[in-house]
């Protein structure tokens, strides 16, 4: 009897030790930089495969008003707290302006009224958070391609960077400001818009007022809110952490199509 107990205890003990060792081993594997660079191969492979299958203009599914989420969950920052944003907000964004600069022939400073005066597109699409949830909303805005055409991209332009008015992670070096970037394929996609309207009303502060990006074939963290400036660049290495976005600098994929 006592032998059995001892053996059982030994078995339980050794199983626990083995699984603990296994787990520590796995965590060590996760943190190994060489392993990480191998895993990253899959990201490039996924992007190339999806882009090949999509072609440039395959559309994201558009829904009807009957499909709208009753409550669209706001995510990320829902109320920027810096004085500049608060001052824009109190003036109903009448003195807010969107800068378009970088590798362009004619830099722009567009007011909200000017943006609203441009041709618009309205689309009902699904927003997919990287965490797994989805919400369907209706977005109205100006196609990004029209804005970029007005600014005239220089030949060396490769990426469009979106600077935002929310500091999502407070830090002394300013590395916590939200930003995002997309390439020219997505920038000129017909469903890529700078949205100022949501569900038939002006975009609410929680959802990124006065202007947010919608890039419908990618996940939620690409949909930058509280836009202040669009910068056209040749490469992403010079910006913040060098990975092309707030979440990208924190380990997430730059191509968020999956």
């Amino acid at each position, binding site marked *: 009897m006592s032998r059995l107990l001892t053996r059982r205890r030994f078995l339980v003990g050794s199983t626990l030790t083995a699984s603990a060792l296994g*787990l520590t081993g796995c965590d060590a594997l996760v943190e190994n930089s060489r392993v990480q660079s191998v895993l990253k191969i899959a990201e490039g492979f996924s992007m190339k495969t999806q882009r090949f*299958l999509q072609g440039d203009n395959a559309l994201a599914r558009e829904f009807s008003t009957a499909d709208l*989420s009753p409550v669209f969950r706001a995510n990320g920052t829902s109320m920027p707290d810096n004085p500049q944003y608060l001052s824009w907000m109190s003036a109903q964004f009448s003195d807010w302006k969107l800068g378009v600069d970088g590798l362009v022939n004619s830099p722009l400073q567009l007011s909200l009224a000017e943006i609203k005066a441009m041709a618009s597109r309205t689309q009902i699409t699904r927003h997919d958070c990287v965490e797994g949830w989805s*919400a369907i909303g209706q977005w109205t805005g100006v196609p990004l391609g029209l804005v970029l055409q007005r600014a005239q991209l220089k030949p060396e332009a490769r990426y469009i960077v979106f600077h935002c008015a929310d500091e999502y992670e407070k830090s002394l070096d300013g590395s916590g400001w939200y930003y995002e970037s997309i390439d020219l394929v997505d920038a000129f996609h017909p469903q890529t818009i700078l949205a100022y309207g949501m569900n038939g009303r002006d975009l609410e502060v929680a959802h990124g007022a006065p202007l947010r990006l919608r890039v419908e074939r990618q996940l939620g963290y690409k949909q930058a809110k509280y836009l202040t400036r669009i910068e056209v660049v040749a490469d992403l290495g010079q910006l913040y952490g060098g990975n092309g976005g707030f979440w990208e600098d924190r380990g997430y994929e730059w191509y968020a199509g999956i």
Partner: protein
Amino acid sequence: MDPNASAPHGRVKVYRHSLLVRLSHWFNVLCMSFLLLSGRQIFNAHPALYWGQYGADNDPSFISMQAVEEGGAQRGVTQVGALTFDTTGLLGLSKVDGEETERGFPSWATLPSYQDLAAGRRWHFFFAWLFVINGFVYLIYGIISRHLRSDLTPASAELAPVHLLQEVKDHARLRFPKGQSARHYNTLQKLAYLAVIFVLLPMMIATGLTMSPGFNAVAPILLDLFGGRQSARTLHFLSAFGLVAFVVVHVVMVLVSGVFNNMRSMITGYYAIEGDKP
């Protein structure tokens, strides 16, 4: 020509599993282990499942795991439809470094053990690619070598209800085929393997792809097929559950029907069967 090497004492070793079947089997074990561990990590980022095109915190969930406060104490609660279960310590609430933490699956069941969605995603998509490539190699081999046809497709006599019932009875009594009939998979085995190869695994891949907004633009028909991205997410989870159930039964069967012989045959290819005795 008889490829089977005869051994003394009436035992015969038959070459049961070809090299490619053995390699793809173990490669699949590796991929599925990492996919399961990293999949639970991803699930934990939002431990609730919905039905339909959309689903988030304010929408009714189909399955969820969460921690609830009750009388000053925390409990882990798992909800499946209208039913709720207390799963404290396992699902919804479990200990992380000795401290009770709100968590879908416990840390020993996820990769990495701590909460890191970005890392979970990298591992998941890397092994998803390997898993898909492995599956295609196996399928192409299975068709060309006629492995699928001659080893896995049941004969019509095997599908007769009387025969199936007899096999179920034999399995329940842990009475396994011997002699000549042990040379081939039995019918329940064939059906289980076919269900995994042609239903559960393709289901995992298709529902996984349906969750990708990029792939939705390529094949929007998948959204109609599964009833929406959130339905696909739920089906992905349920199919994974089905695979885990299969693996549990599979491993139990391996253990009770001669673990040494089974392991040898999946490693070296050779499976020993008793000679037919009168």
